[in-house]
């Protein structure tokens, strides 16, 4: 029953990079399936760390994590599409090599869809990653993730450092292309721009989950997402 209700279950998650300076402290939450989740919080609140743990690239944490019924591992990685906030493709890769690589390893990868993205983004499939601009590299990584029919998408700041015009375009691509009935967790600072896109919101602060509720509940309270954000984060928001 649990497996059907929740995409992500986290219990008593603790993580620190430096002793006595925890990034996440006894974090517990559930994320229902089929939701578009806005993961919000000031810089250094643990958003990226949380996404890295869920994607399986951070290992030394304590606590229990269940993703679609399984602990992080090969099974969850097969159905989780992670877009980190860094360029991770090898320099010698061309766009076509990256597409073939994903096609080899991920059964949910749609090569035809990826090639359509290549045309849409006006990318040269034979251009090497190292000769691309940062924006082009981000497009390649986005098309790789959005060409998968994953059960869980983890997108770390996909709109960070992107100009407002491109931001809307990228947001549309994400919203139009994530697999139906899947869960999408998107970390961002841009509360205003994305409020309409989310149907669930989770706010992290001081290493804890401060808010984890549906956007409908936020609206019922008569407040905007930004107001709730400022209310729970307080001074950190202003510093940020």
């Amino acid at each position, binding site marked *: 029953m649990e497996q059907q209700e929740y995409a992500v279950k986290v219990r008593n998650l603790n993580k620190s*990079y430096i002793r006595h300076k925890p990034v996440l402290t006894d974090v517990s939450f559930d994320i229902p399936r089929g939701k578009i989740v806005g993961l919000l919080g000031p810089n250094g609140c643990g958003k990226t760390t949380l996404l*890295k743990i869920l*994607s*399986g*690239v*951070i*290992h*030394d944490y304590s606590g229990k994590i269940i993703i679609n019924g399984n602990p992080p*591992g*090969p*099974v969850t*990685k*097969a159905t*989780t599409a*992670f877009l*980190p906030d*860094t*360029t*991770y*493709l*090898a320099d*010698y890769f061309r766009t076509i090599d990256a597409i073939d*690589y994903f096609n*080899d*390893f*991920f059964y949910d990868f749609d090569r035809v869809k990826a090639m359509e993205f290549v045309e849409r983004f006006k990318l040269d499939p034979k251009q090497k990653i190292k000769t691309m601009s940062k924006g082009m590299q981000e497009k390649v990584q986005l098309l790789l993730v959005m060409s998968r029919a994953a059960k869980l998408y983890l997108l770390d700041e996909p709109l960070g450092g992107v100009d407002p015009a491109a931001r809307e375009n990228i947001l549309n691509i994400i919203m139009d292309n994530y697999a139906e009935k899947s869960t999408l967790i998107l970390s961002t600072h841009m509360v205003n721009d994305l409020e309409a896109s989310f149907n669930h919101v989770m706010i992290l602060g001081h290493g804890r989950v401060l808010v984890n509720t549906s956007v409908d509940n936020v609206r019922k309270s008569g407040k905007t997402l930004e107001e709730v954000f400022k209310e729970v984060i307080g001074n950190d928001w202003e510093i940020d």
Partner: protein
Amino acid sequence: MIGKLIKHDLIAGARRMGNIYLAAVIACAALLFSSLVKSGFLRFLSSAAVFVIACIAVVVTFASVVFGANKTLFGREGYLTQTLPVRTSSLIFSKWITSSFWVLISYGLAAAVGILLFVYWTSENQDGAQMYEIIYSFAQSFGLGGESVYQKYLIVSAVIGLFNACILVMFIIFSITLSNVRPLNKLGSFGIIIFLALTVFAVQGLSYGLEALCDISLVIEESGMSMTVDPAAVETAIQAGGLAIGFTSVYFKAVVTVFIYIFTVILTETKINLK
């Protein structure tokens, strides 16, 4: 999946090191060409080029193994490799197999270049054949074994050499992994060298100690090869023109390498954070 990992790791290795091997092939072609034009200067130049490129290939291959494994497992490319739907044991195994392959290729190139240069410089006046006869007669005069014993000895020694190369690669991957574990990662790339040196010294020291306790030897005779732990049997075989190779360290290193592989997998699964 392991097959796909190996395929992509081999492609990555070829892209990183392809140029140096291409240069080696071109230099070898130039060497052969120089024998046709009978130019002394060209002969010297192409021989030097082949020799230097072979040396560079070995160094570049080892450097590529270290930096490639570090970057693809624990560097920014780790965001790709560590989110693949494969077991960590498969990831490490693939790196081990493919890195060993490239190291063996570099050894093979170095050996081939050595043989090529020897044949090339001794072929004209048959110096090579004379040298072989001298060495063989010299060995015979000391009551050492026959030709077939030396052939077997060389083959076994070569296989042990390749085996040691594969083991060294596993030690390198282990050292890279250890140097990415907190707080050891503060040592940076220097940590890889320290941990590799410590691992090699520890394993080598323990194998010497074990040899003193139990000396397993492979005895090579005209009639064949056999394993023994009896020092008297080894002595008798050597007096009869045979040769012996110590095998205690080979067995020990094989067992240690399996444990180091398992430990590397556990470290990667429990202690590594991608930056």
